[in-house]
């Protein structure tokens, strides 16, 4: 059972146990020993929770992430950030039902993608997918919707490296390509359990742990944003002009909504309303709290004042780090992970980054990328029973650590190469950057013909 409990959430139902009750029974029969096959039934408590979890992840995107990012840019670019997040998330949703779900979870093909159920062929309100508990299912539409929001938020996160200078049209092209060649394959690789090792996702097959998307979402988005920031180059006036956040109030609202919504992300990845979801729930509370406090402490240790932006950044660092570990850690492991990620991200963002040329404008890499790496590797440790983790007695830290590191490296390389391709295609089709005049005057007027505020 432990393998199921600790494995990445999401894919196993669509694969191993089959996507419908009928399929599940077949699978059970094939297993040979099932004289009295368990009749899989949809649990309404689980369904209730998973619908709610889906709504919570949407809350993370709009208004959550949109505000978190929007508050950090200058007034003249506020609307462009809000529009970019809303539009790429919308695009991701439409693409998801066309070929995204098919490529990620649509059925057995190989270790890199699925193939099947394109345009949701054959899915009806009566289709169900298995959860991690034998005989327990949820409606497939709910599972598709839940996973849809993951695709949508991941591509939205990338915006954080590109703000205040990237063309809206270029971003849309990028999003389309990037989802197809980066996100859907990685989701498959991490979360899809096929009928055979050859059709099971590569990293899932290795036994990599990613409860709610440390690799799929955060490393992926963080690395891609970094690549984008490098290709785009820094904003005009970077390091010479004042680029203070125009409204930390908005960033705080975004932080709060991200935190609240993240329970859909983390506890929702249990796919059921059970003790595992409860564990993810409490871990997502305390890791974040630790992130808040330790970023502020790091600021103090560096001789600065503890700041609200620090507290908010720490919250996100904690949330990111606990994502792969949410059901793979005890509460004190989660606190440790949140604290360590917060301190390391703070050191990077406050002390290292200002020395680099790089303009990862809103620290998509510095927080999501780095935090995701720390979380993914850290999950090997939080599993330890000594830290309150759920690993069995024969758990081998060394080998799991190796797997986690290998999985992180695969994700980094895949995301970097894929993102570079996607940005290049966008550059060829639309050009990447707005004109200097538009950049000076602000993307709100230049790209969208509006002002955020007319007080």
């Amino acid at each position: 059972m432990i393998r199921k409990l600790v494995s990445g959430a999401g894919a196993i139902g669509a694969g191993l146990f089959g996507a419908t009750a009928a399929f599940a029974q077949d699978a059970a029969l094939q297993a040979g020993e099932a004289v009295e096959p368990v009749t899989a039934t949809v649990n309404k408590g689980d369904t209730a929770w998973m619908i709610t979890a889906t709504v919570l992840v949407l809350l993370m995107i709009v208004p959550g992430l949109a505000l978190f990012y929007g508050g950090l840019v200058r007034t003249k670019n506020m609307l462009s950030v809000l529009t970019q997040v809303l539009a790429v998330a919308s695009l991701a949703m439409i693409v998801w039902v066309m070929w995204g779900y098919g490529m990620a979870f649509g059925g057995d093909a190989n270790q890199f993608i699925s193939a099947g159920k394109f345009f949701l062929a054959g899915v009806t309100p009566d289709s169900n997918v298995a959860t991690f508990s034998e005989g327990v299912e949820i409606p497939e539409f709910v599972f598709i919707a839940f996973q849809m929001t993951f695709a949508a938020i991941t591509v939205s996160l990338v915006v954080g490296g590109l703000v205040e200078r990237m063309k809206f049209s270029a971003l849309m092209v990028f999003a389309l390509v990037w989802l197809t060649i980066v996100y859907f394959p990685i989701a498959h690789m991490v979360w899809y359990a096929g009928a055979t090792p050859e059709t099971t996702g590569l990293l899932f097959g290795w036994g990599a742990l990613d409860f709610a998307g440390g690799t799929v979402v955060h490393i992926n988005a963080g690395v891609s944003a970094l690549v984008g920031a490098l290709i785009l180059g820094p904003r005009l006036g970077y390091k010479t002009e004042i680029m203070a956040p125009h409204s930390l109030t908005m960033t705080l609202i975004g932080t709060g909504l991200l935190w609240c919504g993240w329970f859909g992300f983390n506890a929702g990845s249990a796919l059921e309303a059970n003790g595992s979801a409860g564990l993810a729930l409490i871990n997502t509370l305390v890791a974040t709290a630790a992130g808040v406090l330790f970023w502020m402490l790091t600021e103090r240790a560096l001789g600065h004042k503890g700041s609200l932006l620090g507290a908010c950044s720490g919250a996100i660092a904690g949330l990111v780090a606990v994502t792969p570990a949410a059901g793979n850690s005890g509460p004190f492991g989660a606190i440790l992970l949140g604290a360590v990620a917060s301190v390391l991200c703070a050191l990077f963002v406050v002390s290292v980054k200002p020395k680099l040329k790089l303009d990862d404008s809103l620290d998509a890499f510095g927080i999501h990328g780095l935090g995701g790496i720390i979380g993914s590797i850290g999950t090997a440790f939080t599993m330890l029973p000594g830290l309150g983790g759920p690993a069995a007695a024969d758990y081998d830290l060394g080998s799991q650590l190796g797997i986690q590191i290998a999985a992180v490296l695969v994700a980094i390389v895949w995301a970097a190469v894929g993102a570079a391709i996607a940005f290049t295609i966008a550059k060829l089709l639309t050009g990447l950057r707005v004109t200097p005049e538009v950049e000076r005057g602000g993307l709100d007027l230049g790209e969208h013909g509006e002002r955020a505020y007319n007080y």
Partner: protein
Amino acid sequence: MKFIIAIIKPFKLDEVREALSAIGVAGMTVSEVKGFGRQKGQTEIYRGAEYSTNMLPKVKLEIAASDALAAQVVETIQQTASTDSIGDGKIFVLDLASTTRIRTGETGENAL
């Protein structure tokens, strides 16, 4: 007539306005400005980025006054707005060629 421009610390506004009312100033126009001078500003840090602009929030008063009253206005402002600390601000006096009250079209000192 004189056109008096005073830059003061924001929290002194109410006090100054009352003091001016007391000496018979019937009106003034107030705006929010940023002041740059000897007074040092506080450094702001947002994640790694440090900004220390020395641009401090100030309040600007514009007061048209008769020649008779002008000196007293300057004196009143100077005394009320002073906190004996750097950054208390300045008072500038310009000559005012004419004044018109929009409502009535009155001009000159009657328009004040």
